C-alpha cells in the first residue's frame, strides 16, 4: 500500500470534516435538521425525534465521505484493498473532526461559556443536537463510530458499484441520458414534425393565458419578478452575451427606466401623471439614450473599460437619486410612491393578473426580437466582435457602431424592465437599484448559458424564482448561491443550456431556417 493511495482518503476526510464544521458553526445542522424532521415527521415517521434524524444525516454524510474517498481516480480500478483503506482513513479523519467538534463545543456548553458572542449560530440547542443529546465525550464517540463505520460502508459500496459491470453500464447510461437531456451541443435533432411544434406552441400559449389566473397573487408576484429578470437577462445578453462587452453596472439603465417612468406617472414630486404607455416609451428611450451617451466615449476602447465605467455610473446614479441635492426632484431616499399603473382604452388595469399578462407580453415581444436579432447580420457582427474584434473590424464590421447599437438596445430593454418593475410595485426607490441587481443579472445570464435565450429563462428562474420559493432557508441562500456559482463554473462553465449555432449549410434546413430567420 503506497503512501499516495491513502492521500485520497485523508483529503476526503479533511474536506468533509471542514464541511461539517462549517455546517455546524453556521447553524445549518440545526435548521436543516428541523426542516427534514418537519418534512418526514408529517409523513408517518412520527416516532423519529430530531436526534434520530440527525443520526440519519450523519450516516449519509459518512457514506458520501467513504465513497468519495474510494472513488478518486488515482485508485486502481479493481483493487479492493486501497479503496477500503482509503475509506477507513477518510472515516478516521472525518471522525476525528466530529469528535473534536463534539468535545470542544460540548465542553463549552457544560461550562456555560456563551460562544455566541463570536459565533452567533452555535446555540445550545444546536450543540445538543450535534451531541445527540449525550455528554460531549459520548456524543463524540458516537460521531467517531458512525463516521468510521459509514465511511467504510461507503467505500465498500463505491467499490462494489464500480466493479459490478451491470451497475456500471446502468450508471453510464443514465449519465448519458442526463447529459442528453441538458442539451449538449451534439444533439440537435431536426424535429421535422411541424404539428408537434405547433401543438406545443398552442399548449404553451394556453398555459400562459390560464396560469396567471389560477395561481394566487403571491405566485404572480414571484413570477412577475422572474419575468422582469428575464427581460433584464435578455437585455444584458445582447451586450455581454453576444457582443462580448462586460457591463457590471447594468442596473444603471434599469434605474433610468424606472425613474423616468415613475417621475412622469407619479403624483409626487411633479404630479405629471402622464399616460402609462407614453411614460413607458419615454422610460425606454431615456434608458437607451443613457446607454448611447455612456457608450460614445468608451466603446471605441477595448478591454474591461465598459465594465468599470458602467459600475461607476450605476453607483453615481444610485447615490444621486437618494442625495439631498436632488430630493426635491427625485423624491430622495424615500423614492417615488403611487407610480402609475397601465391603462387600456381609458380603463386602468391594475390587478396582479393583468400585470402578469403585461409582463408576459413584454417578455414575449423582447424574446421574439432577440431571436430575430440573434442570427441576423447584426447578430453575427456582434458575435464576431465578441470572438475576435480585430478580425471583425478587418472583415468590414464597424465595431464601434455595432457595440454602440448593442449597448443602446441593451439599455433600452433594461429601461423597459425598470419601468414595468416600478409600475408593478407602484413604487421605486434608490435601494431598488443597488449593485446587487446587476450582479444577479450577470449571474443569471451566465448560469443559464451565455448567449442562449432559453438559458436566460432558466437562469432567471433559478436565481430569482427558487430563492423566493425557498424563503425558509433565507439566511443560507446567498452562501449556497455563491458556492454554486463557483462549482458551476468549474464543472459546466457553458451554463445549463449552452448556446448553439444554427445549421445553415444543408439544403433541407434552408427551406425552414432560411425562411424563419
Amino acid at each position, binding site marked *: 500500500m503506497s503512501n499516495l493511495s491513502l492521500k485520497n482518503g485523508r483529503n476526503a476526510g479533511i474536506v468533509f470534516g471542514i464541511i461539517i464544521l*462549517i455546517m455546524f*458553526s*453556521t*447553524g*445549518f445542522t440545526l435548521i436543516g435538521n428541523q426542516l427534514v424532521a418537519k418534512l418526514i415527521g408529517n409523513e408517518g415517521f412520527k416516532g423519529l425525534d430530531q436526534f434520530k434524524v440527525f443520526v440519519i444525516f450523519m450516516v449519509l454524510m459518512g457514506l458520501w465521505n467513504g465513497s468519495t474517498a474510494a472513488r478518486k481516480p488515482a485508485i486502481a480500478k479493481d483493487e479492493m484493498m486501497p479503496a477500503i483503506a482509503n475509506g477507513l482513513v477518510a472515516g478516521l479523519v472525518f471522525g476525528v473532526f466530529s469528535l473534536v467538534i463534539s468535545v470542544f463545543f460540548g465542553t463549552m456548553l457544560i461550562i456555560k461559556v456563551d460562544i455566541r458572542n*463570536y*459565533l*452567533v*449560530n452555535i446555540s445550545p440547542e444546536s450543540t445538543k443536537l450535534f451531541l445527540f443529546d449525550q455528554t460531549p465525550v459520548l456524543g463524540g464517540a458516537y460521531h467517531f463510530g458512525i463516521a468510521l463505520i459509514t465511511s467504510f460502508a461507503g467505500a465498500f459500496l463505491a467499490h462494489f458499484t464500480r466493479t459490478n459491470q451491470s451497475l456500471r453500464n446502468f450508471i453510464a447510461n443514465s449519465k448519458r441520458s442526463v447529459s442528453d437531456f441538458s442539451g449538449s451541443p451534439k444533439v440537435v435533432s431536426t424535429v421535422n414534425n411541424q404539428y408537434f411544434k405547433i401543438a406545443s406552441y398552442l399548449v404553451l400559449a394556453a398555459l400562459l393565458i390560464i396560469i396567471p389566473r389560477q395561481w394566487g397573487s403571491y405566485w404572480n408576484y414571484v413570477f412577475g419578478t422572474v419575468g422582469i429578470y428575464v427581460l433584464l437577462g435578455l437585455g444584458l445578453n445582447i451586450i*455581454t452575451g453576444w457582443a462580448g462587452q*462586460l457591463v457590471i453596472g447594468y442596473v444603471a439603465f434599469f434605474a433610468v427606466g424606472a425613474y423616468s417612468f415613475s417621475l412622469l406617472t407619479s403624483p409626487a414630486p411633479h404630479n405629471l401623471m402622464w399616460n402609462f404607455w407614453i411614460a413607458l416609451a419615454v422610460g425606454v428611450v431615456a434608458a437607451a439614450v443613457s446607454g448611447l451617451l455612456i457608450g460614445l*466615449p*468608451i466603446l*471605441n*476602447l*477595448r*478591454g*474591461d*473599460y465598459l*465594465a*468599470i*465605467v458602467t*459600475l*461607476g*455610473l450605476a*453607483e*453615481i446614479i444610485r*447615490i*444621486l437619486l437618494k*442625495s*439631498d*441635492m436632488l430630493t426635491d426632484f427625485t423624491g430622495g431616499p424615500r423614492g417615488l410612491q403611487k407610480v402609475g399603473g397601465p391603462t387600456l382604452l381609458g380603463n386602468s388595469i391594475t390587478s396582479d393578473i393583468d400585470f402578469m399578462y403585461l409582463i408576459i407580453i413584454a417578455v414575449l415581444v423582447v424574446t421574439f426580437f432577440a431571436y430575430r436579432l440573434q442570427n441576423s447580420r447584426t447578430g453575427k457582427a456582434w458575435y464576431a466582435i465578441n470572438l475576435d474584434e*480585430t478580425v471583425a473590424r478587418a472583415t468590414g464590421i464597424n465595431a464601434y457602431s455595432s457595440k454602440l447599437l448593442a449597448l443602446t438596445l441593451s439599455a433600452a430593454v433594461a429601461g423597459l424592465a425598470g419601468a414595468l418593475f416600478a409600475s408593478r410595485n407602484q413604487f421605486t426607490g434608490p435601494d431598488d437599484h443597488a449593485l446587487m441587481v446587476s*450582479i444577479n443579472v*450577470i*449571474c443569471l445570464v*451566465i448560469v443559464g448559458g*451565455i448567449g442562449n435565450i432559453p438559458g436566460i429563462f432558466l437562469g432567471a428562474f433559478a436565481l430569482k424564482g427558487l430563492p423566493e420559493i425557498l424563503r425558509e432557508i433565507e*439566511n*443560507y441562500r*446567498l*452562501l449556497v*448561491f*455563491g*458556492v*454554486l*456559482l*463557483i462549482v*458551476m*463554473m*468549474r464543472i459546466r*462553465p457553458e451554463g445549463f443550456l449552452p448556446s448553439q449555432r444554427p445549421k445553415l449549410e444543408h439544403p433541407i434546413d434552408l427551406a425552414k431556417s432560411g425562411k424563419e430567420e
Partner: protein
Amino acid sequence: MKNTSDQNISKIKLSKFLRPLITFLISSFLLYRIYEVVFIRQQFTPDIWVRFAISGLILGGMYALIAIGYTLVYGIMFMINFAHGEVMMLGAFGGYFIFELFNFIPTPTVADPDLTFLNSQPILSIILAFVAGVTIAGLSGYFLEKIAYRPLRKAPRLILLITAIGASTALQNLAMLLFGPTRKNVINPMILERSAGWSVLVSGKPVLITYTGVFSLVLSALLMVALYLVVQKTKLGRSMRAVAQDKNTAALMGVDVDDVISKTFIISGMLAGAAGVMWDIHMGLVNHYTGFLPGIKAFTAAVMGGIGNIPGAMLGGILLGMLEAVGPAALGIDFQLKDVIAFTILILVLIVRPSGILGEKLSEEKL
C-alpha cells in the same frame, strides 16, 4: 465609396478634437469651482483642510494596499478578483479575534489587577494580530486561487469573473453566518487608543493627529516599499513580471507559472490582510460587510492609477482617499456625494487616458 471614406475621416478628426476639448472644459470648470470654494467662500479654515487631508491620506493608504492586490492579480491573470475585499475582511476578523483573545488573558500586576495581556504586552499583541490577519488572508488568497481559479486557467475571463463574484458572495455570507451580522467593536491596546494622538497647531487651532492614523499610514508606506523591493529585486518578482508579460514564454524560460500565480495571490492576500488589521485598529468596527466597499473602492483606485501597474495602484489609492475626504469640501458639495466625485473622476480618467494615470499608453489598435 469615396463618400463613406470622407465621412469616416471627418468623424475621426472630430473625436480626436473633442476629447481634449471636453477634458479642458471640465478641468477648467473644476479648477474654477475649487478656486471659488477655497478662496472666495472661505468656508473652511486651514486647520479644517489639514483634517480633511489627514483623513484622506489614512484612508488612501489602506485603499492603496488593497488596490495593489487587485493590480498584482490583474497584471498576471487579467482577471478582476472580486473576492479580494472579502480576503481583507477575513484578515480583519483574524486581527479582531487575536485582540479579543489577548484581552481575555489576565496578566494582573500589583498596580493594575485588571491588566490583560493586550495591555501588558501591547507591541507583541499588535505584531501577533498582524501575523494572524496576514496569515489568514494570505491563506485564503492561496486557497481561493487553488480551489476556485486554478481549474479555470484556460477559461474565458468572464467565467473567471463570475467565479470571483461567487467566491465573494460565498465568503461574505459565510462570515455573516459564522460571526453574525452586527458590527463588532475591536478593542485596541491602550497605546494605540483611537481618538488619542498628537495635537498640532495649524493656523492657531489644534488638529489631532491620531496614533492609529500615523501607525496605519507608516505601516502601509513600509509595506508598499517592501512590495516594490520584492517585485523589483527578487527572483520571485522577476518571475512575476515575466509571467505578467507573457505566460507562455515565461513557462518556456523555466518559470513555474502556477507557482508564481499562487504566490501572487498569497502576496496580494497578505497585503489585504495587513490592510484588514489596520482597518481593525484605525476604524474599530468589523463585520462581514467590512471588505466589500473598500474592495470596490480599491478596485476603482487600481483602475484610476492604471491597472496592472503597482505604483499606479499606490497613487490611485492615495488619490481616491484624498478625493473622498477633500473633494466634496473643495467642490463645495455634500459629503453624501463623495462617491459620485470619485466615480466621476474615474470615468473621466478612463475617457481621457484609458490606461490610467500611470499605465502604459495603449496603442488604439493593439493586434
